[in-house]
């Protein structure tokens, strides 16, 4: 197990990317509470796997673990999540983040809804590129896809997001996920 030096190295190399990890989980799971649990789980997994990490891009390495943990979680909770979605319109919208509360304009709300309505793989790629500022190479590494696929998926994801924004129909779009 990791002790002393390795643990300090883990904290110095990997923990600075905690915001990136949480942000990705929050958008993949569409929920801050679940994102907190899953990020914690992912960091513990990363810690256990740190022995296999030698050098290279620590952020991409962590984000790869985070997205895999998220997808596993989503698969396991798919049934429950689908059941919840019927009630979505009557449930209060997520806005627990005080930092963003002040900025809650119509643009933000509309973009959030449009982004959350996109298929997971498109949402993932947009979050990595637009919010996290990852290069194509990093996205390819995180999502285990060739760079060419990243480029075409990004083009399609942006196209879908623009369409969703120009005809906002959140309920319809949700069902298509």
């Amino acid at each position: 197990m990791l002790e002393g030096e390795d643990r300090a190295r883990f904290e110095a190399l990997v923990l600075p990317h905690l915001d990136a990890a949480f942000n990705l989980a929050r958008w993949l799971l569409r929920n801050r509470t679940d994102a907190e649990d899953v990020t914690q789980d992912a960091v513990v997994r990363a810690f256990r796997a740190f022995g296999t990490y030698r050098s290279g891009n620590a952020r991409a390495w962590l984000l790869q673990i985070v997205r895999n943990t998220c997808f596993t979680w989503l698969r396991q909770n798919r049934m429950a999540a689908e059941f919840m979605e019927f009630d979505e319109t009557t449930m209060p919208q997520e806005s627990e983040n005080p930092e963003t509360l002040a900025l809650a304009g119509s643009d933000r709300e509309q973009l959030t809804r449009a982004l959350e309505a996109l298929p997971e793989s498109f949402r993932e790629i947009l979050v990595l590129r637009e919010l996290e500022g990852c290069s194509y190479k990093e996205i390819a590494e995180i999502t285990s896809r060739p760079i060419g696929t990243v480029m075409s998926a990004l083009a399609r994801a942006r196209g879908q997001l623009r369409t969703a924004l120009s005809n906002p129909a959140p309920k319809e779009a949700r069902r298509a996920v």
Partner: protein
Amino acid sequence: MPCEQTENQLHGYLDGELDPVSAANFEKHLETCADCKQTLAAEEALHQSIQKANLYERAPESLRKSLLGRPQQSPAVRAFPAPRAFAWQWLAAAAVILLTVLVGWQQLQKPRGVSEAQLMAATLVDAHLRSLQPGHLTDVESTDQHTVKPWFDGRIDFAPPVHDFAGDGFPLLGGRLDVADGRTVAALVYGRRKHIINVFVEKSPSENYWNGAGESQGYHWLAWQKDGFSFCAVSDVASPDLAQLKQLFFAQ
């Protein structure tokens, strides 16, 4: 009809991911293709509105607290005890030491100039990492360049150029003194979306002191020289963002 051929190129161009030749070719194509021109404008508008909407969500303090210094104590981790050290592991360690000494000796034989920039960058990436620890980011916290610039007076034997680039998406967050390789350097702290960029500034001993760009521990760095100062920007933002910041410094 959509111009499908350039669909991918358009996004590569938008994201600064095309090599210079492809970028030039695409710009030439743009002159004649109204469709691509329109799509590019729409994509740029979308990009702007996403950036303005501030969708990034930082990790809650509770998560940070529960993880800092903690993962080792989690039951999941403790469930896997450390394997016992066997004799062959000592042998392996000895082999590694021998190899390290050999490689190190070979490295010493090489001209030093090659890796000098990388060594310097690694030192500054470490300084960047230190600055991200709670309470270490800024000594003077201000978005006003007229507050940050005078702060350095008397603390360091040169006056670093301090500019706020908030209008271009790089707001100045403050300044700090840092020590790199035994020398005191000025660190200017910029924000980029929700990310932090440290720009380390020191007096250049010579005109071609050091330049270049690279990646270390998952962080990008970009170094340049201007007006007798040596600059190195370090961050986890994508390298095109650092290139843009460098341009802004050059435009001053």
